[in-house]
């Protein structure tokens, strides 16, 4: 009996001690992490959506943690301990087959986009390999009162009838839209692709970096295109034609193909909602980019749009962007 006690008992005892020190102890402590500023508990609908998210394994392709390294700046500011207080079970994830979703409620705030994307990701992102979640939708002849049909592009829509989200889809989208990082003083809210080289001004101090950069600016077409792909094409499409009824075309758009860039810049900086463009009233939300992109990045994107898809209008400079930014909303 003696060697058994020494070997098995010893191995077990040592292991238990190590586990208490390295896992259970820290976990007890970390479980008490207070919520960060403005971090809110989920509403019941959002919590339901979180279960839909976990139950359908979205977490195997999507992380929800932003690391404090340059390549992660596109996803927002680095995650802070206080961000996770209301996130149980945790969904930090371990693989990024798709992008990080920590801040997707800010970058894709449009429920319409989320619905179309879930119904068929390739309807908005042609190269996507995300599975479709058509089983979260119903196809009916006519939208019942109180329900809005999802404006799925014709090519991806069912042959007959209209697409209506189920309760599960609504909960899931409510959850996705709740994924918004809250600003933390001292943490910079970098985003876009230019976040690394030029610290983007924080939303609270809009005009700070503008004048210095103004003189040095020259339009970088490659960067403009890349920034457009990373931030805008999911809604406005690489063709610049948008999605009928959901996202307006930028090709031939009156605000874009116009030598006065004020409205164009203003929309990118501050987003838009409920605007009528080319006779169509758009109800979905265009996100603001003032907090995520620097003036130079915005100038590159705007210039890319002004010179693509047959648009020919005057290029802007960083100073133009800074001027619109300075005026505020």
């Amino acid at each position, binding site marked *: 009996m003696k060697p058994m006690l020494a070997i098995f008992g010893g191995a077990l005892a040592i292991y238990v001690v190590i586990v208490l020190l390295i*896992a259970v102890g820290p976990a007890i402590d970390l479980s008490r*992490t207070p919520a960060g500023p403005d971090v809110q508990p989920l509403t019941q609908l959002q919590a339901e959506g979180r279960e839909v998210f976990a139950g359908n394994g979205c977490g195997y392709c999507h992380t929800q*943690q932003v690391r404090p390294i340059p390549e992660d700046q596109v996803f927002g500011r680095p995650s802070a301990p206080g961000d996770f207080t209301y996130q149980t*079970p*945790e969904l930090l994830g371990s693989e990024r087959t798709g992008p990080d979703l920590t801040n997707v409620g800010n970058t894709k705030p449009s429920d319409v986009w989320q619905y179309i994307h879930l119904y068929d990701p390739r309807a908005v992102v042609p190269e996507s390999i995300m599975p479709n979640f058509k089983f979260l939708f119903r196809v009916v002849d006519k939208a019942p009162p109180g329900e809005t049909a999802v404006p799925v592009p014709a090519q991806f829509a069912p042959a007959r009838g209209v697409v209506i989200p189920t309760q599960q889809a609504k909960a899931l989208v409510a959850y996705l839209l709740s994924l918004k990082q809250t600003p933390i003083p001292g943490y910079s809210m970098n985003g876009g692709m230019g976040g690394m080289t030029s610290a983007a001004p924080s939303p609270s101090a809009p005009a700070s970096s503008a004048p210095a950069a103004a003189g040095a600016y020259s339009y970088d077409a490659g960067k403009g295109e890349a920034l457009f792909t990373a931030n805008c094409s999911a809604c406005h499409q690489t063709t610049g034609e948008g999605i009928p009824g959901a996202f307006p075309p930028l090709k031939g758009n009156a605000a874009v193909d116009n030598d006065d860039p004020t409205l164009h810049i203003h929309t990118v900086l501050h987003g838009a909602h409920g605007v009528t463009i080319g006779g169509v009233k758009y109800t979905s939300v265009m996100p603001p980019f003032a907090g995520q992109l620097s003036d130079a990045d915005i100038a590159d994107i705007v210039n890319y749009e002004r010179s693509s898809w047959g648009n020919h209008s005057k290029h802007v400079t960083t100073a133009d962007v800074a001027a619109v930014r300075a005026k505020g909303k």
Partner: protein
Amino acid sequence: MAVTAQDLSRTGSGPVRSERDDHELASIFTAYTVSATFWLLFATAIGLLLAFKFGAPDFWAAKYLTFGRLRPIHTNDTFYGFASLALVGAAYYVAARSCGTRLYSTKLAWIGLWLFNLAAIAGTIALDLGYNWGDLEYREWPWPIRVVFLAALLVTAWNLIATVARRSSEDIYLSNWYIVAGVLWTIVIATVGVLPWYQYGLGQVAISGYYMHNAVGMWFTPLALGLFYYAIPKVLNRPIYSYALGVLAFWTNLLFYPLLGGHHFLFSPLPWWLQTTAIVFSVAMLVPVWAGSANFLLTMRGRYHGRIESYPLAFLFVAVICYLVGSTQGTVEAFRSLQAIWHFTSFTVGHSHLTMYGFVAFAAWGAVYALLPLATGKNPGRLGMAVHFWLALVGVSIYVIALSIGGTVQGLDWVHKVPFIQSVVDMEPYYLWRGVGGILMFLSHIAFAWNVWRMTAGTPGDAASPIMDPSVGKEVIEREVVA
């Protein structure tokens, strides 16, 4: 070097054994192996479907076949269905034989088998219905199901300890150290994973980091190593190179391994000291890994040309090499500079297949081919084993190489801050090659099933006894000793 011929000669003979005991031990070993084979086929068929979905995301996208529900079914069933059952079945055989006694309780072994299967079946159904406990890797099953798994472990520990307690000599052979301790550690892991009180928010992240790595390194690794210490000397008909080195590896593995789980969450908001500890001990792990691998390889010295003559040895050899390479790769991956590139990419998936498949699955197969014929008295066919070996080896090589290159490309895309979708597009050819590797791997499992059939219920094949002629390679050793 402590020569352990006497340890080895003790195996396979003992005072309290009857023919009936032998028969019962064989039927337990058989039942676990057959059950494991079923889970292997099922879980890897799912794996193949998942690989296919990367190229055809709209294929079978219905609710019960959606990617995110099948993926945890694949991982949990390979872990808890296939690998656990295959290793435990062989471990029962090793424990009884190396202690020169009979199994403490056949009945408990059967109860354990039913509990393991009940957990895996219930877990599979729950995940497919969408009851996933938060995408927390390897503990996605709802907690009552994980308690059933825990019960299976308790039954197994009891049975193994009681078997070792009635051994015929004072010493405990090294295999049993690893096997029994592995089960005991895993009882701790499963308990820590289930209890809720410290698992809120970030607290749960700390437990996830601990859990996912310990489930691998304190369960599958010790069981597989325990089988190595018995099966390799057995097949070679020669004692293990150094008993002392094995003891060193045992204690260092225990001291270092549990501390490295946090390396899954480098750069996360977990406390920095926890992450740094994980990195330091990931490096320290080189001690047990190299000590263990050297021990196995030195035991095989002089017999390298015998590997292909003996497929059981060939499987064990690949398993040892993958243990060495996979674990060393794990250490390298843990450095912050490299993590910054590889973390979150498919590189990690390649790494887990190098270790879980190249090491653990090959070890389980090697042990089954080495020991099951000794239990049942039936050998598989040589061709069957050759087909299994080569398809699995070529398949997993393609798989791991494709994802290692692809994962690096993906990581560099992110470092260079190209739009995210570019990294998705760039992965396409690597996903395809992964699928090609996966097809070969799956085909090899069909060959394995066929071989298991012949070693148990079917007509035996033409392979020689797994125990090799001790004279082969003898001159080489003698030359070495002289030189």
